[in-house]
């Protein structure tokens, strides 16, 4: 790895923060306000993607550290793993922004200024999480993300939303404090430690201490990643407007947790040390449990967004499982699943939102025959459902294949069975929605009434990208290469020996 001084990671964080301020002051002019959002989203994409060639060539772009606490600095750096998350989130922010504008105007929602400003702050925090070079930087942005999401969860300002917000804060703030203890403890045993592929904690303390620190950090991140039994906030937070569920509860917030787990496994402790400690096995069991149980719960949900929420919980644990396997392909699969799940799940949420705005239907049982009215939307929905279930030629297959090989590399065939079982369960809870939409007769839906164009286009884009990435995993932002690069650095083998698809 070659380190290059570069301030673009910082600008990627700042641009949406500046946009948030501009959004706040131009609240009276909706078109101007939305221009800021779009401009910042485009600007962010340009900044992030301009760093891509350098990162792919093996460089690490980092800014000069700024001291924030004695001995620890605010330090941002774009490495291969960070780029995956940053490139993903910035791309999907632009897509979601168009969708949001359509959704919020279609819904005639109040408080739109605060909504768009919070959204922009969330994206800043996400960039900060992606590019954080040490634990304290990671934590600062992690907590900013927690707080900036709160106004979005309580957006509707009714009792249900307020309760959802309370639950969300209770889970995430407690988790954040546990995480903080772990970070401060790390600071004492390994002062000023920065993320290094393969970890920096080996030999710094006794096995017992390291296991406790690992547990504290994983507890802190697993809440956002919705690992059972810490998932309680996620279905409740679905009370938020659908674009929030789509981008934050399928991409940014929950993925920040999953990304954090991979960072901790790969860059703080390292697979080698965790193999000795044995704590990652426990995490893998919990992830496997979550995958199966959440799928079972999802089958029982009639509310479409809740079903998707439980599906999200299960899919996030794929990422966690990938990390906890500690094998090269497990890590690769986990990282790539961050991308894969993001495109598929955002499509599903977009569709759910489009249905809500068009027909005000939220329950699956009400959606018989809706495919006649909204064929494109429901086609995209069905396509993404197949992707979640892991059908080939859709992006979900790539990550699941690697996860399965990664499980075999670890000599744990049981997890392959879990992956197959989960794929079948996903088929069972998502495909019927598409089936109901297209093949059940209904008198209710007979006129053609697709979603608004500014919502339909994002749906089509994300659905098409899901297929595109399923056939060419590198088609956008070289996501696969980035994941492979990061995984090979973590386990310290050359790229050629990595294997995989």
């Amino acid at each position: 790895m070659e380190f290059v001084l570069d301030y673009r990671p910082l600008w990627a964080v700042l641009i949406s923060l500046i946009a948030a301020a501009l959004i706040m002051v131009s609240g009276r002019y909706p078109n101007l306000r939305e221009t800021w959002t779009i401009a910042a989203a485009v600007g962010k994409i340009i900044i992030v993607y301009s760093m891509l060639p350098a990162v792919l060539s093996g460089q690490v772009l980092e800014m000069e550290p700024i001291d924030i606490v004695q001995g620890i600095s605010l330090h941002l750096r774009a490495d291969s793993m960070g780029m995956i998350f940053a490139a993903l989130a910035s791309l999907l922010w632009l897509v979601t922004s168009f969708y949001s504008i359509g959704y919020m105007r279609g819904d005639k929602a109040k408080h739109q200024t605060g909504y768009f400003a919070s959204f922009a702050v969330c994206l800043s925090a996400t960039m900060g999480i992606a590019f954080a070079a040490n634990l304290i930087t990671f934590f600062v942005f992690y907590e900013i993300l927690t707080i900036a999401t709160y106004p979005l969860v309580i957006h509707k300002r009714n009792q249900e939303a307020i309760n959802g917000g309370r639950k969300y804060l209770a889970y995430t703030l407690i988790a954040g404090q546990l995480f903080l203890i772990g970070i401060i403890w790390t600071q004492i045993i390994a002062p000023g430690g920065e993320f290094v592929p393969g970890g920096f904690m080996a030999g710094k303390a006794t096995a017992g201490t390291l296991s406790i620190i690992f547990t504290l950090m994983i507890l802190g991140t697993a809440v956002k990643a919705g690992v059972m039994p810490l998932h309680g906030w996620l279905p409740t937070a679905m009370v938020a407007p659908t674009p929030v569920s789509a981008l934050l509860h399928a991409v940014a917030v929950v993925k920040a947790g999953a990304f954090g787990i991979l960072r901790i496994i790969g860059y703080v402790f390292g697979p080698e040390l965790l193999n000795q400690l044995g704590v990652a096995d426990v995490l893998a069991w919990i992830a496997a449990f979550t995958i199966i149980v959440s799928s079972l719960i999802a089958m029982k949900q009639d509310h479409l967004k809740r079903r998707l929420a439980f599906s999200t919980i299960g899919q996030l644990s794929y990422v966690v499982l990938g990390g906890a396997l500690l094998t090269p392909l497990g890590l690769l699969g986990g990282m790539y699943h961050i991308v894969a799940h993001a495109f598929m799940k955002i499509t599903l949420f977009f569709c759910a939102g489009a249905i809500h705005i068009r027909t005000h239907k939220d329950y699956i049982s009400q959606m018989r025959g809706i495919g006649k009215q909204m064929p494109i939307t429901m086609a995209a929905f069905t396509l993404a459902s197949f992707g979640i279930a892991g059908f080939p030629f859709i992006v979900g297959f790539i990550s699941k294949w690697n996860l399965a090989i990664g499980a075999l590399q670890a000599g744990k065939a049981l997890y392959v069975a879990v992956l197959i079982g989960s794929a079948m369960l996903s088929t069972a809870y998502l495909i019927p929605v598409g089936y109901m939409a297209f093949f059940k007769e209904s008198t209710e839906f007979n006129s053609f009434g697709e979603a608004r164009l500014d919502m339909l286009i994002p749906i089509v884009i994300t659905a098409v990208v899901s297929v595109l990435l399923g056939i060419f995993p590198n088609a956008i932002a070289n996501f696969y290469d980035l994941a492979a690069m990061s995984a090979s650095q973590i386990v310290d083998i050359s790229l050629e020996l990595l294997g995989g698809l």
Partner: protein
Amino acid sequence: MREHIPALIAIIPLMAALIAPVVAYFSMWLVRGISILAILTAHIFSLNALYHSLTVGTWHYYFGDWAPPWGIEYVIDPLSGSMASLVSFISLLVAFYAGPYLKDDTWLKKGIFYGLYLLITSGLLGMVITGDLFNLYVFLEISSLATYAIIASGGRKATVAAFRYLLIGTIAASFYLLGIGYLYAVTGTLNMADMAGRIQELMSSPAVLIGIAMIVVGMGLKAAVFPMHGWLPDAYTYAPPQVTAFIAGVMTKVSAYVLFRVTFFVLGAANGPVYAALTVMGWIAAVGIVMGSVMAIAQKDFRRMLAYSSVAQIGYIVLGISLGNMLGLIGALLHILNHAVMKSCLFLVAGGIKWRTGEHSIAKLAELSGKMPLTMGAFLVAALSMVGLPPTAGFFSKWYLVLGALDANMWPFVIVIILSSLLNAIYFFRVIENFFLKKREAGEAVKRETGAPKESLELPVTMLIPIVILGIGILAIGILNSQIVTNILQYSVPGGGL
């Protein structure tokens, strides 16, 4: 002139206090101008002295050219210099803020208010910069007596609260006086530096033990460390809103400073009895942090909630002092600064809300965010800082405190600090929900009068500016805390220089 700056820091507000009632008879405007000018001068001199102590070295000033230990000495080191700057800064902002509150008062009330206010300021500044234990007592009484009077001016309930505070405060001051009496009896000196040299070999003397116990208890009472906090909630709740911010922001902190100064710079914290006293205080503080936070959750009145929160927050400071290691002490000192800024900001907001709506009950306050956006913005920042979320100031003092506790292997303290953050989150988010989300029901918390433009309840500029300055200050301290620690605080702890 310049060589007298240390003395003038305390004397200028004192002189202004004496002439305030007389000036008020002639001109309402002039008394306000003189008061603010006096505090501003004290603030500039404090900053100047702080700068001097950091660049040149500790500034010793001998009153009447009587060299210590015979005469009274004022000592400005980085610690006392930064405390003096903090006290005078908060005092300045609150004096500025108090204007609209006093608009309708008579000249006498106004004159007395400014007189008392300047006396408190002068007393607290004197306590901070003096190098003499008895002189410290004199300033303690100046500030305390003026505080009793100013709290009592808040109405019927305030009189009772002030009387209670007067009883407890007098007991506390007597404890302190007796304590230094014992120390004087065995060492024969009242000068801090002189006593520090003489007392080391006398540590086993019973008189010293009693002296230590009395000083610690006396300052514990004044600082309202749990369970000696009984006077505080009533006093803060019923005091005139315009001064609560000042009293809550710095008064208890100055007592905590005295505790720190006496134990670490005079007695020597490593000595057996002092160490024991500090350990006990640390555990008491830990209990106080939890109890204060739990009591704050139970409160219905916004100001009372903030008062109990103060009890918890003073626990952080004492806890850091009791840890005694570099990180813990830096955490405690940083928290003195942070809490002064945060709590002043919150009480100014509470006062502003009361002024606009006449309401203090949390449940009755709704829909304020749209009506007073800047005030509520500052409130939000202060609340998040109280919870200790990055990148606000509160996070960083918590960071140092937890670091210090872990360094000392004091796990219970780590748990207490973390638990307290979460309890803070509970009571502040409850308020945030009300201010930002709740819909107003008909006839609730209607605005009182005060000629605000329609639909807006935003405060007048004189009240708004201090609030906004403090709100921005919280973020600035958070972002710049590394500079503050490196350049000032690390020289303020014994054996400084990390």
